[in-house]
């Protein structure tokens, strides 16, 4: 009893001295509960036969039926495959670009020129997905787009790019590189800035060329950053920029373009099969969680500093 009272007094004293901190914290915590944790509670519809009228809690449980449906559905399997393929292609073609750019920036001696080029290549990062899609659709338009105009000049047949499944991925990945390669190079530039200058000085004494210094000093020095960024990227493997896909794909290109999130969007928000779509989302989230956690563990082991 005495212990209890003492504890109460301690809590009261603590609150009397620090109540303002809790007032400052409250909006954040309430926001997270209402907008991010409440939906997690709503995830239970993935295991229910959800109907709008009965609501989340009133709908009956049906176990893993939606997951059986999903894995028996060609559309979902296709979306899963496309997600992994598009993500892998983005990794292979998109990941090296910012590193190459950072290395190139580092070799530019004229600071004005460097700043100007940086200003230009960072810009697309700040442009909205809708605008990107507008540019892509206009530029690849079959009759009037500049790409087909140039093809025509070169004597090739015009191609209706956005209806051709085989062209969807190159266009999607290309526009991703155009938008993000420049801005993503900032992280690697920061890593390069942290390389010990005395390494270069002694290399110069030994008569090394800049090309040699890049391979023998710069790249090995930024390797930890490269590996950490690679791990983060692999952790986010299921994260494909589905907003741009929604804006660019059409039934004719679903076979190569439809990913898990666009499938969820169609099944859930357009068709209204909320429970099935929520199950697809849950599957996505669980796999993503495992990937991110694994990535974090690996990077912890590698760099001794966790990502978060």
């Amino acid at each position, binding site marked *: 009893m005495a212990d209890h009272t003492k504890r109460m007094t301690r809590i009261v004293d*603590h609150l009397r001295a*620090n109540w303002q*901190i*809790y*007032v*400052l*914290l409250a909006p*954040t*915590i309430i*926001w*997270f509960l209402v*907008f*991010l944790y*409440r*939906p*997690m509670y*709503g*995830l239970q*519809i993935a295991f229910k036969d959800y109907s709008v009228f009965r609501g989340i809690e009133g709908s009956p449980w049906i176990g893993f039926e939606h997951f059986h449906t999903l894995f028996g559905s060609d559309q979902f399997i296709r979306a899963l495959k496309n997600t992994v393929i598009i993500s892998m292609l983005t990794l292979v073609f998109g990941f090296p670009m910012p590193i190459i*750019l950072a290395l*190139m920036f580092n*070799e530019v001696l004229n600071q004005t*020129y460097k700043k*100007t*080029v940086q200003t*230009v*290549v*960072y*810009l697309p990062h*700040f*442009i909205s*997905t*809708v*605008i990107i*899609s*507008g*540019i892509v659709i206009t530029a690849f*338009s079959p009759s009037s787009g500049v790409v087909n*105009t140039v093809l025509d000049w070169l004597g090739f047949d015009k191609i209706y790019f956005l209806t051709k499944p085989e062209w969807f991925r190159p266009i999607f990945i290309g526009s991703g590189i155009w938008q993000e390669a420049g801005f993503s190079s*900032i992280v690697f530039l*920061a890593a390069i800035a942290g*390389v010990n*200058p005395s390494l*270069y000085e002694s290399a110069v004494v030994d008569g090394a*060329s800049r*090309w040699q*210094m890049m391979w023998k000093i710069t790249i090995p020095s930024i390797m930890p950053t490269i590996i950490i960024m690679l791990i983060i990227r692999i952790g986010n493997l299921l994260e494909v920029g589905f*907003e741009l896909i*929604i*804006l660019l794909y059409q039934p004719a290109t679903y076979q190569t373009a439809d990913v898990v999130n666009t499938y*969820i969007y169609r099944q859930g*928000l357009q068709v209204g099969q909320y429970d099935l779509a929520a199950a697809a*989302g849950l599957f996505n*989230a669980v796999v*993503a*969680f495992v990937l991110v956690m694994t990535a974090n563990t690996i990077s912890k082991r590698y760099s001794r*500093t*966790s*990502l*978060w």
Partner: protein
Amino acid sequence: MANMNLYSRGDKGFVIANMILIGLFALSTLYPFIYIASLSLSSGFAAQAGTVVLTPVDVTFAAYGKVLSEPQFWISYRNTFIYTIGGTVMSLIIIIPGAYALSRPQLYGRRFWNLMVAFTMWFNAGLIPFFLNMRDLHLLDSYFGIIIAFACNAFNIILLRNFFESIPSSFEEAARMDGANDFQVLRKVYIPLSKPAIATVTLFCIVARWNGFFWAMVLLQDEQKIPLQVYLRHVITELSDDEQFAATLIDAPYSVDTVTAAIVVCSIIPVLLIYPFVQKYFNKGILLGGVKE
């Protein structure tokens, strides 16, 4: 390593080749913007014929005239300003105090609260539960719904919290000696010392709001409330199939493509205007700091 003395004779060719290559990359980054701008200033006929490649052909402002005469364009432009300003202010109101509280050593359950925030970066309920939650909260088709529901995220809170934690406690101790409480310490010590970090978070919020489209498209049905990006999407995806619009095209000095290009330009201009001012904040430390908890 910009030292000129690290640059020997044999490297000249390498340096020049590098400058040319990176210049070409910058030009190819810039080209789509130039193309769209030229298209927006070309005649509909020239655009349809595919003659616009680099510079405008048959210069006309007809497409802009068409865009600026659409009431919906102005409505959605106004809405974008409402969402951008309202949303950014709301974000700062929630994020700054929250990040400060989470940075306090004396906060009871600090590890738990921080984990609660960080967990949402790793696990997300997904599109459908989020949508149903918004519906159940009666926040569909609501200005307030859009402003509040995207006001916060783990990344921005952690970014700012890390910055607060990096401020030496001696600054705070001086204020405490003068009898300052937490509200005052936040306002008079932490906020003034964290201007770069707060500017970065503000920039992220503004850009996200200005460009935000997916949830606005999903959550807003009322055309009076849609932002510019949703209107733009509507124009891009539906204008070419819109028979009413097609009827106006006969003999018109604009085409679907030039009108689309003109709206794209109108939507990029504000970004271009503030871009030079915010560029200096792309500071490595702040961007990297956000990655670590």
